[in-house]
């Protein structure tokens, strides 16, 4: 094993200590009895070490962090994304193992892929290849079923016509 340590290891745990406010000094916006040692870089509220959140190089309060999570910076705070493209591909391909269910799932997969095409599946670069594969595969399955039913109807129609004659 090889290891390297950095100054953050020796940094004092600022949030673990706090002092009571005395007259003439600013108190924390959320804890008025505690002395403020930071201010929010966004709204300017005074913050004690407990309320200060270090995020993306800024000192922010919980309210601003929540506002950021609902606004344009939601992506920077995103904790996860759903893979609509993988699900569409799974719906398109897996039921083929059972054949009969693919008659229902192929249109479903096609519709799902088209409906969720513009949805963001990841905040990191991700190609649309799964969506394309799902659409192509489901279209092939649908085409296969159409051919199958056409053959079946035609065959039955011929049989039925022959009996009548």
């Amino acid at each position: 094993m090889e290891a390297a340590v950095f100054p953050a290891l020796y940094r004092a745990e600022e949030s673990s200590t706090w002092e009571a406010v005395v007259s003439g000094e600013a108190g924390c916006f959320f804890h008025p009895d505690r002395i403020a040692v930071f201010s929010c870089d966004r709204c300017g509220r005074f913050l004690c070490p407990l309320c200060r959140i270090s995020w993306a190089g800024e000192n922010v309060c919980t309210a601003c962090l929540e506002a950021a999570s609902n606004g344009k910076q939601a992506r920077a705070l995103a904790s996860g994304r759903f893979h609509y493209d993988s699900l569409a591909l799974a719906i398109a391909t897996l039921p083929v193992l059972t054949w009969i269910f693919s008659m229902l799932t192929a249109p479903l997969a096609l519709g799902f892929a088209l409906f969720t095409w513009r949805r963001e599946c990841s905040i990191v670069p991700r190609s649309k290849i799964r969506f394309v594969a799902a659409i192509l595969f489901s279209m092939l399955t649908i085409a296969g079923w159409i051919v199958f039913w056409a053959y079946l109807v035609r065959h039955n129609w011929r049989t039925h016509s022959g009996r009548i004659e």
Partner: protein
Amino acid sequence: MQNRMYRPLFETFWVRLGNVRAWRSADHLLLVESRFFSEHYTRLFWADIQAILLYELHTQSSVLLALELACLLSVLAPVFFWQPGWPSLAAFVFLFSYAVWRFGCPQWACQLATRTNARQFALPGTLTSCRRVVEELKDSVRRAQGALPGTQPAEAGLNDAAPQAAAYPNKPLRKQPVLVVHVIAFVLGILSPFNVFIFVLYCPALIAAWFLQQDLKFPFAIRSAAVMSQMFAVLRIGIWLLMVTRVRFYFAPVVFNHWRFGLPQIVFSLYGIAAIYLHSVKLAQPSRRVQPFWA
């Protein structure tokens, strides 16, 4: 913020390094953990990283290799001795797939520790290439934090306990019952073609093993056995598919007479293979020996 703000920490074209991928940006490292149809993010800001550890995964120890060889022989011997011919071809496919998996395994891993978090991810390639990646990480952290209080890292009073304390802020690791479940699943997987009741037990054991092996502390030794079990399932799928065709009489020694379980077996096996493929490279516990970069 555009997608372009993230670029991969390393490029892997043909090796799948578990279910955690690392992406770097200007101010943080993004770890993307894939689970089923979703992915979850962990951001480690350069300014918060306390320690970086590079350690070996011990996937090629002599004990492990001997164990895997024994498992291989136990799978292949019946095929070769009982019925040469088509089964031998299937056995070679199994051997090839095992070799691909074995030589594609990552040998090194990296652990990043902050005050509240410690995350691991596998690194591709040789020690040299892994060190190159770690050096890039170190440079990014140093740009954000500066140098240690001393002029040289060795003068800062670093000892072996410091990185370990940073890497393991929580309580020590403990043994998990998952080991027993995996051993049971593996043995059942090996024996299941010969008895339908064993196969019935094998399916739930496979599912239980898959869910339990999500534990990060799961050692690599038993996991490799689980991988072999999944590969064996692939072999059985192939045999089953061939038996459906007219060449089934060539496979008489590898008896597969429980037809009604054919479809569940395919589904379970494919499920297990995908799961083991995506989740089998989680990292083993780092060894206790610590040697700083500069030593």
